[in-house]
């Protein structure tokens, strides 16, 4: 059965029609993974998993229901399918619901190189890589006194998707990651450092020593962090923290937030939503990209979409439903989990690199904050109001000085993006959402 997901999907679509569904789609996902962790060189955890789930979205006219199950024997599925169709009948008809326009469905799709031939890495190799990363961290400096360990994970997955108007497709992928979390300690207290590498290809992961060493440096530079006085000042976001800002903008540009009235970007299409230095792209077609997929959660081809081009909001991210609501065209950004109807999701999302080195950006700041940590969920998508816990390093006359913590940075996303003054050239594809270093000309920093 596991080798014949498409046949199972087609069978389930037929059965749904027999039960009275006017249209349907089936998503079948199978995945295996192995997570390994070490702490002080010893195995701390070993977790192996294997999952298969089938998701069905059934339509009765304009009414629909979505369901998922792990019981994929055909006998159990018959009941499950009948129940889903029944549930769809009980749901209110929605004039905008339905499968996508068949003309937009992907007819052929590219090989995006999502698969490493290495598959799941055996436990002893995996543990050895984690040990090397942790050892490099522990040996880097005598102030690295404790460890939250190091972890190596590998996973393989396969996605099968078919609908009752002729789309049937499948793809598979792999993912690997290695991370280390050392703890630095001195008289001022303890600080953790985290660093990682993640890739679809096993042989493209960063070297374990560099992961451990970088994690150690990140922990050490936080030692002795202190609070600062409340002020308004320039804020430089390191690439990881800048990526979280880019995510927030993409969330507000998602069709789902927009038609619900829950986005600060309503009515902003074609208008300036960021400074001219800012171009933000979502591209699901990047070969080997962590967020790449040949077709989206509704069977439409993925694209390269410029969300923001030189500061101007060019497109929203749309699935079929939100596109219909907003009277636009879907952008191939339907994301689909097995148990839920399609939503909108970014694929590989990035802010295009600029021309400054991170050093030049820091040099340009007389007094300001270099942010390397953000915590909390203080982003209000409806208003764009932004207020998050932060930590990092204080910049004085263009030099990084002492670490700071227990402060917040606040502003409104509209103003924050409008005041991106400099964009770095240091874009690295470490995750599916990435950014270079960026400088915001001014934000409120709350401290003492």
């Amino acid at each position, binding site marked *: 059965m596991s080798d014949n997901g498409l046949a199972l999907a087609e069978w389930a679509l037929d059965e749904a029609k027999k039960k009275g569904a006017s249209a349907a789609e089936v998503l079948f996902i199978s995945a295996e993974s192995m997570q390994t962790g070490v*702490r002080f060189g*010893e*195995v*701390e*955890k*070993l*977790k*192996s*998993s*294997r*999952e*298969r*789930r089938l998701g069905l979205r059934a339509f009765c006219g304009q*009414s*629909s229901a*979505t*369901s*998922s*199950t*792990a*019981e994929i024997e055909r006998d159990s599925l018959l009941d499950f399918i009948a*129940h889903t169709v029944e*549930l*769809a009948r*009980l*749901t*209110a*008809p*929605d004039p905008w*619901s339905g499968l996508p326009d068949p003309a937009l469905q992907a007819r052929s799709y590219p090989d995006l190189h999502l698969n490493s031939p290495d598959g799941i890495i055996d436990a002893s190799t995996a543990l050895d890589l984690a040990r090397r990363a942790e050892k490099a961290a522990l040996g880097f400096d005598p102030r690295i006194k*404790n460890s*939250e360990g190091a972890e190596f994970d590998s996973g393989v997955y396969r996605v099968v998707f078919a609908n009752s108007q002729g789309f049937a497709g499948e793809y598979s992928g792999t993912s690997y990651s290695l991370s280390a979390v050392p*703890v630095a300690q001195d008289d001022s*207290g303890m*600080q*953790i450092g985290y660093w990682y590498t993640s890739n679809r290809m096993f042989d493209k992961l960063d070297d374990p020593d560099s992961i451990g060493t970088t994690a150690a440096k990140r922990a050490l530079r*936080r030692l002795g*962090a202190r609070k600062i006085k*409340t002020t*308004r000042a320039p804020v430089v976001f390191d690439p990881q923290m800048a990526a979280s800002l880019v995510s927030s903008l993409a969330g507000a540009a998602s069709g789902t937030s927009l038609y*619900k*009235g829950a986005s600060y970007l309503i009515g902003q299409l074609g208008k300036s939503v960021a400074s001219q230095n800012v171009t933000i792209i979502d591209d699901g077609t990047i070969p080997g990209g962590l967020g790449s997929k040949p077709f989206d959660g509704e069977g439409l081809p993925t694209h390269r979409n410029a969300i923001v081009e030189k500061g101007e909001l060019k497109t929203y991210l749309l699935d079929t439903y939100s596109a219909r609501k907003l009277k636009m065209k879907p952008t191939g950004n339907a994301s689909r989990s097995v148990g839920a109807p399609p939503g909108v999701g970014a694929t590989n999302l990035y802010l295009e690199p600029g021309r400054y080195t991170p050093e030049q950006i820091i040099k340009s700041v007389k007094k300001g904050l270099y942010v390397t940590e953000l*915590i*909390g*969920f*203080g982003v*209000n998508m409806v*208003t764009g*109001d932004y*207020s*998050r*816990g932060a930590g990092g390093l204080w910049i004085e006359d263009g030099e990084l000085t002492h670490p700071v*913590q*227990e*402060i*917040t940075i*606040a502003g409104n996303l509209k103003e924050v993006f409008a005041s991106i003054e400099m964009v770095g050239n240091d874009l690295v594809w470490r995750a599916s959402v990435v950014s270079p270093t960026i400088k915001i000309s001014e934000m*409120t*920093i*709350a401290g003492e």
Partner: protein
Amino acid sequence: MANELVNPESFFLKRFEINETAVERTLGAALERKADYADLYFEYRNSEALSLEESMVNHTSKSLSQGVGVRVCAEDRTGYAYSDEVTVDRMRIAAEAARAISEERNQEIAPVHVGTPVRKHNLYELESTALEVPVVDRARILSEIDKVVRAADRRIRNVMASFAVEQKVVMIVTSEGRIATDIQPLCRLNVSVIAQDGNNRQMGTHGGGGRVEWNYFIENDRWREYAMEAARQALTNLEAGDAPAGEMVVVLGPGWPGILLHEAIGHGLEGDFNRKGVSAFAGRLGQRVASELCTIVDDGTLARRRGSLNIDDEGTPTSRTVLIDKGILRGYLQDRMNARLMKMEPTGNGRRESFAHSPMPRMTNTFMLPGDSTPDEIIRSVPNGLYAVSFGGGQVDITNGKFVFSASEAYLIEDGKVTRPVKGATLIGSGPDVLKRVMMVGNDLKLDSGIGTCGKDGQSVPVGVGLPTIRIDGITVGGTRA
């Protein structure tokens, strides 16, 4: 469905066509190498969700999941494997994968005999589950919510309401022969409202639930209360000015603002972080970590609460654990492994999201006991400060102790009076320090309405919090008005 599940043990054995011998053999296989302990966690989960937007109940969903997790513990090592195919073969393969953490044994081990039932609470035995309530009846309440909110004010622009119900059946069998079972219902009704005035748009959210029957939402018109509260919050926020920035006196309202305790101290007192010495609270048992007005407990034994459990996910009955007694740190939250390694007793806090996850120490319902002050006295005592009554999420850095939680409804206090509403802002403080600044504790302890979900290491579990009105002298408020 509910009646079919009266006996979880026979439910699983029948459902998966396995018998006790198979379970014993799996545990035997798990222990074949040098290990202290092994357990099996069987789970069957049936859940449904309905949601309304733009006045239509246009999304319904249903999910069935089942599986078994096999865990092997040896000293501080954990091997875990799971499968959503529950067969004798799959269980053996999982046991072999899980035991790879441990070394070969030299001698034979005694065979495992299961059969000792575990004593447990009876906190949520329901007459029926909301899964049995016809979908159209559940949908009707969502439509009613939409109607009452839209009728409340012309500035209401959109209403989103959802109802989710699940029923989880679990069986835990341990290598010591203990067998524990539970049926765990859970419901949640949620309402979000967007209000608009000119170009100003604001959201308000409220909801609640617990391990309750459908009628819980109907009696006392609870559904209406959630709806009107969400609307009121959205409308209030339309009037909100910029929030202040900097350190100031903050008064937290009762109930959900107890998320402060969850972030500031709860996570830092979980056994795993303290055993490893990576928590800012490590090694501080017996020390003062809060003002003497503060007594804080974690209590998994409250009837029908969202964070409560008859047994935790390792089969240990839940309990009431005093974390801080009159300001002194007294206890940690423990699962079995960390309790054993720290030579302490398990507290019934070993929890997991599902069979696909290994358990770890987690909170249940975490709250501060009431004090003597009236809420009025507390507000009146503040010349200048912030009064925060509703919050979104929070987060903590366990190791340096810094935590945040974000206000979604807050007001200025001027000359002892609550005056203007201000926009939401993140509050940041230091866990081992913030409760030392608690200067007044109200007599109005309230538990939250049943909406909390806690994330740790990629696992989400339902939790509760509670707080009386309290005054904190000095916490940083992250507004924009410097």
